[in-house]
């Protein structure tokens, strides 16, 4: 919900991350993989912004840049008023206390030899949030209750939990230091269909009860992203091609890639499916090592003209909180 009073928690400005490709004994640089190539967006306090795209589009890399797991090649990431691309290593710890990440596979994000309680307490101990063990224990119990886990399970080890419960532990750990931003990177893709809804609802309920919690929700499944997000950014080959409110994305998609992505996702309703437009894209996503000139989508685009190969379309505002990067719309 965007208005004048909204506070921007995160601003990403023209973010680029190019991975060098080296060759030979002297590791001479021969090319760049432009994983993220000029991405700009804002994230508002209490908002969920969805980042969606196919594998290799750079969505995970953006999440990693925001936590500064990667040092961006250029651009700014302004979090709570501070450009964190320039934060020194020593100060980074203070910034990172206010952000957390949830990964796809909960089992590999936990140390199998430590108990669930220790795992949840670890970030708080690193940031020395409390003075006594009792305080840590009380907070862990509180967090367990918040994510819907029975506090009697604090002493158990990761393998003793089911997939859904493990993801709840990871959510509890992410919440431990009371972050302002949680980057959720495919948080439900590894879970069973009937369990996915439990985690989606948990994340939404937590956001409603915790003031000022924002999510960057990264996933490949547009139906899930659209469901949890207030706004959605669609990515293709390192760039945002369209960004708008979630409900507008289905009702009024503008970019041809968004339209084909929507068309590719079946709706679980045979009566609706009969009526839907079918756009089948040709070919595959090109290698980011050697992206097509101009608009990188043009070789697969059903609306392309020769002009589309000549320049990169800018992400322009078409009104109503809707931006699109295409010459043809």
């Amino acid at each position: 919900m965007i208005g004048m009073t909204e506070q921007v928690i995160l601003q990403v400005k023209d973010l680029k991350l190019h991975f060098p490709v080296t060759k030979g004994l002297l590791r001479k640089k021969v090319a760049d993989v432009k994983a993220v190539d000029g991405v700009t967006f804002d994230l508002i306090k209490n908002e969920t912004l969805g980042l969606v795209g196919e594998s290799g589009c750079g969505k995970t890399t953006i999440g990693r840049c925001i936590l500064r797991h990667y040092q961006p090649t250029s651009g700014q990431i302004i979090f709570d008023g501070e450009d964190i691309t320039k934060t020194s290593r020593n100060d980074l710890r203070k910034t990172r206390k206010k952000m957390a990440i949830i990964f796809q596979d909960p089992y590999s994000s936990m140390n199998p030899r430590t108990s669930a309680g220790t795992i949840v307490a670890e970030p708080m101990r690193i940031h020395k949030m409390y003075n006594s063990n009792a305080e840590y224990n009380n907070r862990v119990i509180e967090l367990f209750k918040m994510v819907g886990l029975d506090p009697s399970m604090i002493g158990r080890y990761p393998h003793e939990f089911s997939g859904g419960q493990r993801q709840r532990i990871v959510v509890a750990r992410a919440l431990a230091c009371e972050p302002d931003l949680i980057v959720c990177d495919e948080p439900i893709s590894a879970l069973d269909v009937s369990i996915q809804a439990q985690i989606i609802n948990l994340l939404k309920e937590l956001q409603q009860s915790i003031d000022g919690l924002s999510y960057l929700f990264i996933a490949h499944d547009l139906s899930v992203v659209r469901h949890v997000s207030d706004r959605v950014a669609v990515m293709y080959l390192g760039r945002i091609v369209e960004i708008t409110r979630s409900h507008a994305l289905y009702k009024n998609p503008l970019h041809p890639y968004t339209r084909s992505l929507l068309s590719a996702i079946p709706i679980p309703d045979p009566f609706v499916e009969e009526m839907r437009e079918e756009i089948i894209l040709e070919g595959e996503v090109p290698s980011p090592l050697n992206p097509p000139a101009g608009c990188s989508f043009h070789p697969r685009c059903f609306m392309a003209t020769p002009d589309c190969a000549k320049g990169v379309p800018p992400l322009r505002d078409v009104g109503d909180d809707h931006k699109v990067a295409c010459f043809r719309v």
Partner: protein
Amino acid sequence: MAEILQVNNLVTQFNTEAGLVKAVDGLSFHIKEQEIISIVGESGCGKSVSCLSVMQLVRPPGKIVEGEVLFQDKNLLEYEANDSEMRAIRGADIAMIFQEPMTSLNPVLTIGHQLSEMLIKHENFSKEDALKRVVELMELVGIPDAENRVNAYPHQFSGGMRQRVMIAMALSCNPKVLIADEPTTALDVTTQAQLLKLMTDLVQRLHTSLIIVTHNLGLVARYAERIYVMYAGRVIESGTTKEIFANPRHPYTLGLLRCVPRLDDEEGRKLEPIDGLPPNLINMPPTCAFMPRCSRKQDVCRREPWPALEEVSEGHFVSCYVKSQEKAR
């Protein structure tokens, strides 16, 4: 149309150290000529083991304990897995596509070699004729530059192209029945749409019957004419896709439809997760396996054994004492 494949009361068990796992526990289904059906269920419900049982590919400690697999008036379970009769049918008359195209292909043999193997073994092609036919097959499934790519190795293909190879291999001997076990789960959505379109077009052209095994209700709604919903090794509901989606009578089917986000969701729709976890198939109680998670259970469910399938309207079968009357939305 006549029934091409009929499975009656199939029971497949795994005798493990932890106990007897009843992976498939009295499964019956059939498919008619040129029909597209779907077997739907979450991981561990026995859908893959059912397919492997039909093909007699279950490995120890797994064992097909009883049942019939009727194909062209023969009961395939009367053959041993290695009998020449079974080998003549497996791969030729009944073909299968697996989820992971990389693990289904031999990494040290060329694509051409692997594709021609089928033709040489089953159709008595000479090596030269087989290679010619392989190029045609590769063109049929949309692999560009087939003449040169025939000498490439699996790692030189993308995931989508590998799955195209698998489709070409499965269709190379004009099978009567094609079983696709989660054929596109590992792939991107636009690739998934391409491949399913290709597969459904090809089976129509070749008059092949297709069984899509999946957990994705959207795919079912888009492609299948009839569906079987599985839970804990049994079919709990079956019927035409439209009937099941319009009038789901089993609480599990209803729960599945209500817990998945849809692209066309209204704003603010709340997902209704199914409580609890899928059952552990070791030492199952005789009562309905879904009962512990069911929100509509009554005394009769706790007292009586798992109910048999009952026809509630023409062609619509459900195994439940209570039978929900609600719409999915």
